[in-house]
């Protein structure tokens, strides 16, 4: 199996995170402060500090990714750390709070963090599952060539309609689904179904023998066109999914930062 940012250096950051969490959990289990575990205990403060530093490190990824001259590790290594440490925070933060949650700014920060992490996982899964499926990366058709071919097929089908009967034009109208490249069309896949064979057969039966050959050729062309449209939309969907998650991840992480800052100020100055 080839190495990815997830398995980077034999899951180095997974192991580091796992060992760290194991140590923290053990300390948590052995610790029995008066009033039970919570964020106000010494251990609670320690875990809180570690978690805040962890979040700081995760945010620093954004800076490292753009520090193109930096020789501080590789961006891939940073991403590996970002993913595994981020996942680890899901457990570390409850250890910090003694698993106490409520309807307050503190739990809001946790919820935002989990949301950020969840969207991050969504992104990581998309990266892992979809990256190999971009046909243009594999010597296949690019969007531009597909669009061009879709146009050609449409024109060829249209050309066959010249001087044909009403029945012939009905077949054309039935299967000449307009090209819809809207986001909605990309997400809902079935906007451009293949030619329905049964319906096509019914329509063909009322077309004169003289026009039969052209009608069949036209249906073939339109079906090819629809297949290609679906491939194009599939590629668009893949590319959208590779970017879309970021539009949730980034705002959530910004909101998390604000909530975290409020949480720290409230805890340190108002308790």
């Amino acid at each position, binding site marked *: 199996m*080839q*190495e990815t940012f997830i398995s980077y250096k034999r899951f180095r950051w997974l192991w580091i995170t796992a060992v760290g969490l194991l140590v923290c959990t053990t300390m948590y289990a052995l610790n029995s402060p008066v009033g039970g575990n919570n964020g106000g205990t010494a251990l609670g403060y320690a875990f809180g500090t570690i978690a805040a530093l962890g979040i700081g490190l995760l945010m620093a990824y954004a800076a490292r*990714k753009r520090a193109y*001259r930096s*020789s501080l590790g*590789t*961006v891939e290594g940073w991403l590996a750390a970002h993913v595994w440490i981020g996942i680890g925070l899901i457990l570390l933060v409850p250890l910090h709070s003694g698993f106490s949650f409520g309807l307050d700014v503190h739990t809001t920060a946790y919820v935002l963090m989990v949301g950020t992490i969840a969207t991050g996982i969504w992104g990581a899964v998309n990266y892992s599952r979809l*990256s*190999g499926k971009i046909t*243009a990366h594999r010597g296949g058709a690019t969007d531009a060539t597909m669009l061009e071919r879709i146009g050609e097929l449409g024109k060829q089908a249209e050309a066959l309609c010249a001087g044909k009967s009403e029945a012939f034009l009905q077949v054309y109208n039935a299967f000449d689904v307009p090209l819809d490249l809207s986001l909605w069309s990309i997400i809902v896949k079935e906007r451009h179904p293949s030619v329905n064979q049964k319906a096509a057969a019914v329509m063909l039966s009322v077309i004169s023998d003289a026009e039969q050959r052209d009608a069949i050729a036209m249906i073939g062309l339109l079906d090819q066109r629809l297949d290609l449209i679906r491939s194009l939309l599939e590629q668009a969907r893949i590319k959208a999914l590779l970017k879309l998650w970021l539009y949730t991840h980034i705002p959530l992480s910004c909101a998390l930062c604000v909530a975290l800052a409020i949480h720290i100020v409230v805890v340190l100055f108002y308790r």
Partner: protein
Amino acid sequence: MENSGWGLAGCMSEHFEIAIIGAGPAGLAAAASAAHHGLPHVLFEKGEIANTIYDYQLRKHVMAEPGRLPLRAHCRFEAGSREKILQEYQEDLGRLKANLRRAEVLRIEKKGETFEVGYQGGTCTAKHVILAIGVQGAPRKLGVPGEEQGNVAYTLSDPGAFSGKHIIVVGAGDAAIENALALAEKNTVSLVNRGTEFARAKDANSKLILGAIEGGKIRCFYGATVARIEPQSAHINTPDGEVTVPCDHIIARLGCVLPRKFLETAGITFPSPDPNAVPSVSHRYESSVPGLYVLGALIGYPLIKQAMNQGYEVIEHIRGEPVQPADQPLLEERFVGLPGGFAENFPKISANLPLFKDLSAPQLREMLIDSTLHLKEPGAVVFERNDYTDTFFSVVSGAVEIEIGLGRTIKLGQGQFFGEMGLLSGRRRVATVRVAAPGTLLLETPRKQVLKLIASVGSVKRALDELFMFRALQTAVFPDTPEPFLQALVKRAEMKSFKKGEVIFREGDLGDAAYVIRKGSVKVSRLAPSGKDIARTYVPAGSYIGEMAVVSEEPTPRSATCTAAVACDLIALKKDDVIQLLREFPDTRASIHREVDRRRVQNAMADWSEEAGSLLDFMMQQGLSDAENVLLINSDLCVSCDNCEAACAATHNGYSRLDRKGGKSFASIQVPISCRHCENPLCMTDCPPDALTRTPSGEVIIRDSCIGCGNCVTNCPYGVIKIVYDKASDGFSLRALLGLAKKEKGPAKAAKCDMCASLPGGPACVRACPTGAAMRVHSSKLVEIAGLKRI
């Protein structure tokens, strides 16, 4: 006829001190000197004065190369128009009252102490004869089918006579370049250059033609020859295969054949039977016949100024005046600081270096003026393995040691030479060389000078070819075999060139030869059980192919098909020769058989994968087998974030030197448009300021001396070099941040990947890839990347 020397009776008994044959620059200068000193002389000319200049295109600007060399003559010459120079010659001859006779000399015969010169219309005698007839008499022919048709010419006097035609000019010398440039004004011109550079041309011409090629005015085929000619088209062999070019006329400017027979009947001897050989002359230009001097192009000196200086020097010598050649100060400069100086060391060079024994004295002087002498002590490193320097070294005295690896060394002594791999364009040094004897004197000659000698002196070419083969066999194939075996093999070996994509041999054919790859790389493919030909591996330069079929005494079929992955030079070793030699050297035979058996086992263990084979094939089609360091992107991991391009632009003044989307891709590999730092970099082929160079660590970089001529952009087959204009930004400023800073348009510069030489962490593209899809690899990793076992 303005001269009255036609009288028959008067000539029969005429005697001159000096008879000068040929009124070209050398003959004119000699006659001018003789007339100046009042020596009885005659100057014979069958055609026009300075015939070659006369034949130039009208109003052609004649150059005065080499610039550094001073002119010494009693007639004038400086760069200027054809008309001005011809007029000055006429005036000076008239002013000095030179004795010009318009007649063709038919024979020269030495009778006792005098020469009898027979010419059209008479005979005369002379004490000294100066032969300066040039080589323009007999143009070299193309020698290809279709040449007999009327559309091939060997001279061009009026390019204005052609318009709107398709014209092919063949040649890479000054005549070809000047004709091509003049014709390109009104015609579609293609230039066929047998080599990859314009090494023989004057620098100025070389720049002009490269500019025209870059500007798209002339199409140039490098490494190409005319294959055959048809009435409306011509077929041209190029490194990428045969192409057909529309063609109304062919102008072949391939130089001229020396009038060797005429010279030989006069008693002049030649150092070798080579058709390119020039007569041996002393440093006073005296031939093997005492009193008979040969000047100018006949002895390999085609330049006007050099020829005129020779004419002057010969007359001084005949007058008994001590005279030094005009280039003497330049030459002596090379010896400053050496114990014994010029006087002691200069004679050593020709005496100790047999490689240069066929060079005429002037050729030797020119080579030395461009070379450097090094006096070194034992242990001093001449160059290191994997350095990318490209000069050529000869051991004038002392010795050096070549470390060929595994603790083995080869010792070279006086008269031997090394560094020949550097002559094969930008290859790395394959071994470290150290001085091994006290007071070792080495001669370091620039690549361009040696290439010039290879092109003009047959024995230098042969000696270097044999050395290439010997070293290639010794280092790559048979390191432990005795030298006599290798030497015998080299004597029987043959050089063969293959174009990209050309099949060297096919699977199943009976093997008749093994090949050592001298330049380029070879694709090995085999028929899969499905019947499809699948790429299996590639073999780089310095390695060998086809050995299995030739070491066995039985007829052995080829186990694989071998195809040239890029243009290749191979050394062919014939089966019969190998078998015969192996019988004579039983020890060698045993060790070679062991090596062959090992390869057989490897082959048997090799796996089959059509998918992997196709991927390897794709990568080789992209020219990656020539890559020293190429950026590849793993499509399984790439999420098209283009952070690689952003990183490249951010670290290179805002211009990305890689284009991810623009490149080709196949299966799991994308090959972005980005420099591969080729083993044989074509970009370096013609860089006028020599700005393109290899750093000692192997990157091909463009230095600041770049003049933005764009030759490299044209020569790079992979389109990775761009011309950029922007001035370097002065760093951060508020104006710059707000986008208000005026961008000044700087001078044009070529730009390409420099492997982020200035960054401590290495190439930013790879380090900025979040998914680990970007990688930088050497061609030796291709087989692994394709997912095949290394064989």
